[in-house]
Structure formats: C-alpha cells, structure tokens
C-alpha cells in the first residue's frame, strides 16, 4: 500500500521552477533518500510535503491527498525535521518535545494525560528521560539532534521527513542518529524521506536513492545503481572512485585531481 | 518655561470664556454686575454660584492672581501656582501648585472654597466638581474687554464687586488716555514682536496683537502663515521687512536685549536697531492679561511717543 505518494509536484520560487514534476510512490516502512548537488530541489520537495512552500500537484498519505487547509491534519501525518532547527535556549527538554503534541491539542486547551504519556515514552526511547528539565541551551549537538527527532516522534506521524539530518554532526553522532532512525523505522513502520549530502551514508541507510539535478529526477535505484562514477561526475561535477564492500556497502571516494 | 507657550495661553479656549457669563465684549452681559453693590451672597457668575464669601481661594492662573490682589481679595487667597510671582504677597504664600500638571489631592488639601484656573489640562474641572469644589475658569483674554470683565467677575465672586469695578474702570480710563496721548503715524509704524530667540512671533489676531492695534501699528507677522497666529518667522523675513520697532518679550527667558539683537548677523543695519527702537518688555507682563497690562501699554506708548518726537 502506498504510504506516501507524490504526483507531479512542482515548486517555483519567484517564477523559477525549483522542482519539476516530481513523482514517487513509497510504501510503508520504506526509506527514500534524495541526493543531488546544491540547488537540486531536494529540500524543496521536503518543504512542499511539510507544507512550508506552495506547490502544484498532489501529495497523498495512504492515498488521501493532504488537504491544503488543514495544517493539523498534515502535522498528524507528516513529521518534519528541518536542517537547522530553531532552538530556543531557555526552553526545557520536556516542553520542547511537548510541542510535538501540538497537532493533537485543542487550540485553547492544554495537553492531556495521554499526551504526557506519549512524551514520556518518547523521551525514554531516545534516552533523554534524565534531561527532561534541562534547558536546551545546555545540550550538546548530538543531544539536540536526538531531541529534534524526539519531537518529531511525539507527533506520532507515519511519515518522517529529514532535511540534512547529519550535516552538523561529527562522525560518531552521525552514525548514532541514522541508526536510531533506522531502528525506529523498523519498529514502527515509519516511512522516511531524507535529503542528504553524504553519499556513502545515504547509500548505507536508504532503501532507494533518487538523484536530483536542477529540479528534475535524473537517476534512481539502489545505491549500486545510482552511485556510479560517470553519473556522479556528470551531475556533481566530482571526480570520484566508487568502491563496493563485501557486504554490499557502496563507498564513494573523491579523487584528488591535482598533484600532491 | 518656554515663552511661546505662556504667550500661547493668551490665544486659547475662547469657548471657556464664552461659557462663563456670555461672550467677551461689552454687549449683552448676562450678569448685570451694576446691580450688586454691597456684596450679598449667594452670587452667580455664569453657571457658578457661590453661597458664601470664599476665604480659601486657590489661583492656578498668574493673571487671576494679580487681579485678585488688585481688587483687595488678597487676604482670601491661600495658595497660588508656581508662576504666580506677582505681587510679593502671592510669593510670600510659599505655595507652588502646578497649573499644568495639577495634583488634585494637593489642591483639595487646602480645603478651597473657590479654585480659579485659566485652562483645564485634563478633567481638572470634572474632578473638582466631583469633590464639590467650586471652580471658575478665567480663560485667556482675547481682548481688553475680556480683561475688564474678568476683573469685575472676580470682584463679584470674592465679595469685592465695588472695588473691582473701580479697578477696571480706572484701568480702562488709563489705557484710553495712554492711547489718546500719541498721534497715529501715517504710514503706520511697523513692529516685530519677538516671543523667543528662535523668532516665534504673534499676529495681530492675538491679545497682544490687538493692543498694538490700538496704536495703529502694523505687525510684520500678519499674513506670513495663514491660519497660524504664532508663526515662527525666518530671519530673512524680519530683516527684509525692516520694522520700525522691535519689541522683545524674551528678555527674561532668553536674555535678549538691544545688544544681542544688534549682534545678530544682518540685523545691525535695521531701522529699529540704528534708531534705538528696540524695546525691552517684561516676559511675564506681556504674557498675562491682568491689571499690569497697563505697564505694557505704557511701554508701547513711550516708545511710540519717542519715535514721533
């Protein structure tokens, strides 16, 4: 069953088309990673799904098209983790994750006991329960990353969108974050769409890759199919070797073009 | 305090004067003050009725203060505002109420039975009425008739109506004599009246302006700015109109005199400067409308007479 479907989605900024007719169907539990050079339109696809930019075409969840007017409905079905989340320094961890319940709380009401139980569960699962009263300004980068994911999980949405989830993290925390998302996806059947710069990591975790260039899809398939030197050279302008590990991992290694 | 606002009071709130005892002028006055000789209470002026002679009077208007002392009601005054600096007995009261930012509690602390103001900065009248304190609004005079009338009204209210009538009659006669004693020049003598040293002036529509009209003088500020009776003139306008007289009403506030005027660039060649027709006026006297308006008129008369000779 299609968990998430894009049908001829186009996004324009000031008359310039950033995404040209994006089509895709994801089944439940699938992890799709969008790759491509800067300005390819990866973020725009995610932002369109999150309702942050206007688009033409349709995006549907479980075959129900997202209503343009209900931000609540969208937030209950799609959780968006932005590239640079705005972290209010004087908010505490509990309140931040509580924001994830916003789609379920009445405009002028407060959270219910059930909402608080969801928060508690999420904090436990992500090992943040001891931080509950800590202020965000005191957390490290890795802890903040877990935190933003925690908030997204609190939305209890079947679709998770991740915009460059690892750009600001060191190698250890990158692995931590991606392992976490993968684990949760398997446990809960989340459908994940991410946009990433690190091609090796993208290939390692995603089920399928889509390479975008100037708003159009130019290549798609498994890591082995998409991460090929000639393709990378054509669209990224990079000179790279591709190495295949025994366990199937595809490693992209940029090559020096100048003499040492 | 800025000169221009003090003089500006002279042009304010015609309505308040109108509310009290008919419009300014010697025409139909609803209070026929001639009928009251010995002061019998209750008395009524406009819509204010006093049932007994007031003996705790508060004056928040320097002009009214001067009038009260002139008509013999000085002993009934218990407090005055900070600008009531004449006569010396008023200063000796030692009170410094504010007419512009009145503190209603402080006013009521004197248990007044009559409060005289010249303008209401913001529900002062309403608050005084709430406390049942009688208030009389002696608004800024628009003409000499207003001045005589206010003196008479205060006389009626304070129980000195006969003295007041004498004072206003004498004042009127003195003024008429002063005016009659000089010949009107032809063509009319021109004058520039200076409110402050940034060249704010008055037109002949104002109280001050009308006094100069008595002497048939021409105001260079007339028609400079339509609709504005307190225009700020530019130095060029003043110099190019080359007035016969310069009257300085900023001698106290802004330390101006004949020397400082002559020192201004381009002013040393003016007729008024070379012929020594720069007249110094007392800031206070020229911004009030009390009995001392006679001093103002005398100064003008003397200046004009000297010019004629």
């Amino acid at each position, binding site marked *: 069953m299609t968990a998430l479907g894009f049908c001829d989605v186009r996004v324009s900024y000031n008359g310039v088309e950033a995404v040209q007719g994006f089509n895709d169907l994801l089944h439940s539990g699938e992890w799709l990673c969008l790759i491509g050079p800067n300005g390819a339109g990866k973020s725009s696809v995610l932002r369109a799904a999150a309702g942050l930019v206007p688009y033409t075409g349709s995006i549907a969840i479980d075959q129900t098209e997202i209503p343009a007017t209900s931000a609540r409905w969208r937030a209950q079905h799609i959780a968006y983790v932005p590239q640079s989340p705005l972290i209010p320094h004087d908010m505490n961890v509990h309140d931040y994750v509580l*924001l994830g319940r916003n789609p379920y709380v009445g405009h002028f009401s407060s959270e219910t006991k059930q909402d608080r139980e969801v928060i508690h569960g999420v904090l436990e699962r992500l090992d943040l329960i001891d931080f509950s009263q800590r202020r965000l300004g005191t957390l490290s980068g890795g802890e903040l990353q877990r935190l933003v994911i925690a908030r997204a999980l609190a939305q209890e949405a079947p679709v998770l969108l991740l915009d460059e989830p690892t750009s600001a993290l060191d190698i250890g925390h990158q692995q931590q974050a991606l392992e976490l998302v993968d684990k949760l996806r398997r446990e809960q059947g989340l459908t994940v769409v991410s946009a990433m710069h690190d091609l090796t990591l993208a290939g390692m975790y995603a089920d399928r890759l889509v390479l975008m260039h100037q708003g159009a899809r130019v290549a798609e398939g498994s890591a082995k199919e998409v991460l090929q030197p000639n393709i990378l050279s054509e669209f990224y302008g990079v000179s790279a070797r591709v190495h295949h590990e025994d366990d199937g991992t595809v490693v992209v290694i940029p090559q020096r073009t100048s003499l040492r | 305090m800025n000169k221009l606002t003090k003089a500006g009071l002279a042009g304010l709130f015609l309505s308040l004067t109108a509310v009290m005892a008919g419009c300014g002028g010697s025409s139909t006055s609803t209070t026929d003050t001639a009928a009251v000789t010995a002061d019998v209470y209750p008395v009524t002026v406009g819509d204010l009725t006093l049932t007994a002679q007031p003996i705790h009077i508060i004056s928040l208007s320097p002009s009214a203060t001067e009038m009260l002392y002139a008509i013999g009601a000085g002993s009934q005054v218990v407090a005055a505002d900070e600008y009531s600096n004449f006569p010396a007995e008023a200063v000796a009261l030692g009170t410094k109420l504010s007419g*512009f930012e009145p503190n209603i509690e402080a006013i009521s*602390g004197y248990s007044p039975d009559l409060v005289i103001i010249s303008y*209401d900065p*913001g529900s002062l009248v309403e*608050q005084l009425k709430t406390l049942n304190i009688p208030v009389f609004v002696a608004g800024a005079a628009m003409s000499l008739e207003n001045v005589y009338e206010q003196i008479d009204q205060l006389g009626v209210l304070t129980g000195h109506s006969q003295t007041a009538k004498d004072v206003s009659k004498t004042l009127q006669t003195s003024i008429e004599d002063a005016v009659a004693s000089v010949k009107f020049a032809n063509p009319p003598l021109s004058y520039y009246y200076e409110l402050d040293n940034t060249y704010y002036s008055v037109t002949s529509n104002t109280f001050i302006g009308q006094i100069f009209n008595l002497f048939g003088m021409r105001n260079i500020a007339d028609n400079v700015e339509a609709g*504005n009776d307190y225009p700020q003139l530019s130095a060029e306008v003043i110099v190019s109109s080359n007035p016969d007289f310069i009257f300085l009403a900023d001698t106290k506030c802004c330390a101006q005199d004949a020397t400082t005027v002559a020192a201004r660039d381009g002013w040393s060649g003016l007729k008024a400067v070379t012929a020594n027709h720069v007249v110094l006026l007392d800031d206070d006297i020229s911004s009030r409308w009390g009995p001392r308006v006679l001093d103002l008129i005398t100064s003008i008369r003397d200046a004009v007479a000297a010019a004629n000779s």
Partner: protein
Amino acid sequence: MNRNRNSFALAGALLFVAMIVGTMIGPAGPTWWRIPLEFANRLPFIHVNSGVSKADWNIVWLIRTPRVVLAAIVGSMLSVSGASYQGVFRNPLVDPYLLGVAAGAGLGATLVFAFQRGATRNWIIDPLPLAAFIGALVAVLVTYVVGTAFGTTRSSTTLILAGVAVTSLATSIQAFILQRNTDVVRQVYSWILGRLSSATWGDVRLVLPYVVLSTGVLLMHRRLLDVLRVGDDEASALGTNVRRVRLIVVLAATLGTSAVVAVSGLIGFVGIIVPHAVRLLAGASYRVVIPLSILLGAAFLVFADIPSRVLANPAETPIGVVTAFFGAPFFLFLLRKRSNAR
C-alpha cells in the same frame, strides 16, 4: 505545575498589597492607616470607626481609588500586550507600541488639541480619547496591510519594518501640525508622557470592556505563543496556522493597548520591563509569562504611580518619567545578564 500555582498566588497577593498601599499614600487626605479601616467599614456587615471624614473619604474614593484601579488596568494591559507581541515576533525588544499604536494615538491626540479651539470640552463624547483610539487602530491597520502585502506570507520582519515606516510618517505629520500650532505643544507633550492624574471612574468604565476582551483573547492563546517559539516554519509544520495566530494576537493586543493609551497617554517601558522581569523570575514559557505579566504589570504600575503623585508634591511627575527611570537601568541589567549568560 505546583510551582506555577505558587507564582500566581504570590503575584496576586503582591497586586492586592500594591492596591491597598496605593490607596493609602497621597499628598492629601486622611492619615494612611485610617484608610484600610474605612475600606473595611464600607464592606457589608462590618462597622469600624476609622475617623475618616466624608470630605476626606471623597478624596480617597473619588480621586485616588479610580487612579489606582486605572493604574492596575493600564499596567496589566501594557504588560500582557508587550509579552504577546514579543511572542508573535520572537523579538525581546518589541513593545506594544511597535506597530504604530504610539505614533497613531499621538497623532490623533495632536489633531484634537490643535483643532479643538472653539469646541467645548463638554461634547457628549470627549473627542480626545476617541481620536487617540482611532489613530492607534488606523496606524496598526495601515502597518498590517503594508507589511503583509510586500512580505512573504510568514515574515515578521517585514511587519516590524512597516511599523517603523508608519511610525515615522505619523510622527512627522504630528511634528508638522505642532509646528503650526505651537500653543498646544505643552499639552501634547504632557499627553505623550502619560498620566493617571486625571483618572475618574468614568475612565475605568470606558476601558474595562476592551481590556477584558483583549486580555481574555491573549490568555487563550498562551499555549500557541509557546509553539511559535520554534519559528514560523517549524510551528507551521507542527500544525499551527501561524499567520492567523499572529493576526488575532496582534489585533487583540492592539485593541487593548489602544484603549488604555486613549485614556492614559503613552506610558513607556512597562510593556518591555514587566515581561522580561517575569521571564527572569519564572521562566520563558508563555503559559506562565502571560498570566504573570497581567498580575505583575498591574502591581508595577500601581507602585510606579505612587512616586508620580508624591515626589514633586504638589506637582505631578509624569508617570512615563517614573517608568523610564526604572526602565533604563533595567535594560542595562538585562544586557549584562544576557552577555554573561553566553
């Protein structure tokens, strides 16, 4: 949550004390300790001999008490309005006058002062508060139309800039009018500095409905203001209609602020100091900041009004001067704290 309840109770108690103290201190009237006794005496079923004469009681009840009540109303409205503006614009330096309320009200007042010559103050409706109120609302309306026409659908910076532009325009028109009507400069200046000295029970009745409505709406939106703290984009992705929330909050805050400005002039600093003080004391969550701003703002202005009527006795010190006197050092303190905290 218990901590919050304690804070509210404490703030409420402080306000109560402030109001009692406010009615006890003044340049005239009965001895201070007799006043609460007389208040008690006026309650049903209680008889206390306070020794306060009828005339003295009039001073307390007809002059001082409406002033204290109005101070509480104005203080609370300006504070909650400031807190709300800071919430929707995510900018700690924003105050309730930002979008043109101050300049618009000032212009309205100036027009009345300049052109009221010949008109009596005994009109059925006093034109002065009405003009100030309308001026404030019109200015904000213009700001909103201009600010949302050119900006992106969710940009708050554009709105603030539009507010700056409208403020400059209104101020320059005001200056032009004053230049041609210099005799009213003193009155306008006095109005701008703000005053509670002319407060009457009529003023209280006039503003109460607007303030109650406005404060009610803002209280209802306090949870949503917390959601806005993560930025327009994320708040939107979390299911909130950011533009609508901003519009409603701005409208409500402006309505209430315009009403109090109409009767008390422009009292500055309250809308900035109080919400920040609340944050320092009780944390930055709007669920707490909004209600506490209401209570503490009221208490603050009631206290600030006391030196206003006593300091330069028998003259009044404009209350805007008193609040600025507290405001300036407070800003410095705030700056130091923020730079140290990094």
